[in-house]
């Protein structure tokens, strides 16, 4: 197995000793089939035990290991060293406060996730004994794409609106709201509208599209938001022109 020495410039921050973050460089002998995460684990195990970061599954499904790699929001377990040069810059995900080293404060996202009512609001209280809701493969296909979000927050790191407006609900949460709005078992669109169709919701989005570009699972939050804009506008005009429908 070939080895290559790669220099990692990692943004460090210890709130107890540092006034602000600064870069620290590590030289790592890397195996050719490694991902960035493997190299970071090497740094922690063999060079600097004080480096803190999140990771778990190492297969791009838990969403823990998001970080800025040469300025691009990436999952470090899915970013192969073979695609990178000999010098790699690593920083915590943009647009979130830094807790420590590569660990960000995710509270804002968790709150926004909860605010869009990301659960089934059923039409009727169907007893479990009556069996499952019938849902055809076509109905599943309607929302399936939007179920794939692993909450990795790469989209939030890429979104300039989220960077500039701390109120913005954000791509991930809005894509999840869309997932439930499209689910044939759910009737909660109106209940979600307060947050989703608000000025801090879909209308803060100006369709930069960076979120969908960086999403590791093709959730396409940008698409979800634009579709929600159309649906919300249609709702608005329906309510305006046909008020008797309520």
């Amino acid at each position, binding site marked *: 197995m070939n080895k290559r020495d790669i220099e990692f410039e990692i943004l460090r921050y210890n709130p107890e000793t540092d006034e602000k973050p600064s870069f620290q460089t590590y030289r790592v002998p890397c195996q050719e089939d490694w991902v960035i995460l493997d190299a970071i684990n090497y740094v922690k*195990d063999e060079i600097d035990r004080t480096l803190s970061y999140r990771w778990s599954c190492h297969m*791009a499904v838990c969403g823990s290991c998001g970080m800025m790699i040469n300025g691009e929001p990436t999952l470090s377990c899915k970013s192969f060293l073979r695609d990178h040069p000999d010098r790699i810059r690593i920083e915590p995900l943009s647009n979130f406060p830094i807790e420590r080293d590569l660990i960000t404060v995710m509270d804002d996202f968790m709150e926004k996730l909860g605010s869009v009512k990301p*659960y089934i609001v059923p039409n009727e209280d169907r007893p479990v004994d009556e069996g499952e809701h019938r849902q055809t493969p076509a109905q599943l296909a309607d929302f399936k794409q939007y179920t794939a979000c692993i909450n990795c927050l790469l989209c939030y790191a890429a979104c300039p609106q989220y960077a500039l407006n701390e109120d913005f609900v954000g791509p991930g949460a809005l894509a999840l709201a869309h997932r439930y709005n499209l689910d044939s078992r759910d009737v909660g669109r109106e209940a979600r509208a307060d947050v989703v169709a608000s000025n801090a919701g879909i209308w803060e989005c100006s369709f930069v599209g960076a979120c969908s570009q960086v999403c590791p699972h093709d959730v396409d939050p940008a698409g979800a938001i634009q579709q929600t804009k159309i649906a919300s506008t249609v709702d608005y005009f329906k309510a305006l022109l046909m008020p008797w429908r309520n």
Partner: protein
Amino acid sequence: MESIRSDVAIVGAGGAGLRAAIAVAETDPDLRVALISKVYPMRSHTVAAEGGAAGVVKDNDSLENHFDDTVAGGDWLCDQDAVELFVNEAPRELTQIEHWGCPWSREPNGRVAVRPFGGMKVERTWYAADKTGFHMLHTLFQTSLKYPSIQRYDEFYSTDLVVVDGRCRGVTAIDMRSGQMRLFRAKAVIIATGGAGRVFPFTTNGAIKTGDGMAMAYRAGVPLKDMEFIQYHPTGLPGTGILITEGARGEGGILVNRDGYRYLQDYGLGPPDPWPRKKAMELGPRDRLSQAFWHEHNKGRTIESPHGDVVHLDLRQLGEKKIEERLPMVRELAQSYVGVDPVHEPIPVRPVVHYTMGGIDTDIDAASRIGGLFAAGECACVSINGANRLGSNSLTELLVFGARAGRGAAAQAGDEGHEPDQSAIEEQAAAAQDGVGELFRRTGGTERIPHLRKEMNDTMELGAGIYRNEESLKESCAKMADIQRRYAGIELEDKSNVYNTDLIQALELGSMIEVARAIVVSALNRAESRGSHQRLDRVERDDQNYLKHTLARYSTDGDPSIEYRDVVITKSVPGERVYGGGEK
């Protein structure tokens, strides 16, 4: 130390923990639930499970069949009353999570679809593409947000249970962000912290699977049951250990050796055709498949690869359409991590540690012998999985026993018993704090965490792998005892407070060492071969002496003590595990 009061404290927010929290909230919305996890719930390892969750649903299937398959799959070490309850409640739980929005894959008529899975006579594995665990976890987490009574404490690392007069009164946990320890006072505690695959070097398990909850209960006096039974999943990617779901074989994938030969037919699982065929060949039980690999390797018929020997999982005959529809993640993983497109080339795979059948000794109601202490999921051992778990029973287990633990804890929370002795509680909390403080104060360290961890990994792989013998086990027991002794020489190289992962890794290593000792000592004492515990020096199953569960009890100095408890046999008399054959 700051106290946080709740009615039910749950340690671990994966599938079982979340299901338990929801069960408490639904039983009584006035009960306060403290859901404590060392990671955000979406990161729990449930998320990585792929294949599916079993529950009887087809007309040509029966609870009896599911029961028989599970008991036989577990080589008759399963408690049959528990299995009966499990198969009974399975369809209901799976339907409940469907009501909560789980995107199960469907038949054209809109009903949930099921796929064949290893060791099962009739297909009954509900699936959501090949990301079932992911969808179940996210459905449960998102549903849990509905209940205001569930208060989450994300990124709190639990260290010790507080047990006074035989009753669990809470748990101490470190708020990882500030480094401060908190005492979670509760009337009932549920442990749902998952398994301990990280004790081994090659595993499908993520970094967080370090057996912390098992170790906590163990130290508090609850025995760890059946720890010697470690499941090797037959198809993990070489190097990373990334899981390639059994579902790939359920859809028709085959395993071949270096000669392109479907070698499983040589190990009592044939004939090879017709294929696919349930309970035969590649749809045999996991222990048999992993053992077959070991034999093929010894015969020199496996294929060399930069990360050890492999065999080939061939999916080409499925065709691109089927792979994209049913196994899209498998394709993606193979392409990314081993550079292989399964549509055109076979995937290199080898057995990797995947699941811990053993765990915290609990009964059919998920209760431990300590009042007010429950456990559910992989960290617990009821036992429904016995000596070998059938694929897709575990995800269902999270729901069935998570719910039972929740309901049990909710009932307990209404009945506290005597007023607990406050000073005893505070004393234990202080001791827990001191234990962690000692790690900070220690200087002149002689051991490094990553190196000690690697030594433990290597010891376990050599001594407690797919095949074991008395000598290797004795050696491993001695080695692990020595590693535990040397653990006292660990010094923290990071002595900060805010998000100190050096500390967390040190504590996790401590848990792993304790669990590892329980594994090897239990294995040494079981002088027979059964399910996933295979002894080269004791190749036969010995029902006369070993139709019993192993109970390992913690000892502060020396090896755990070992006791046995009879397995509950009701309907299914131990027989031969029969797979293969011509039946369809």
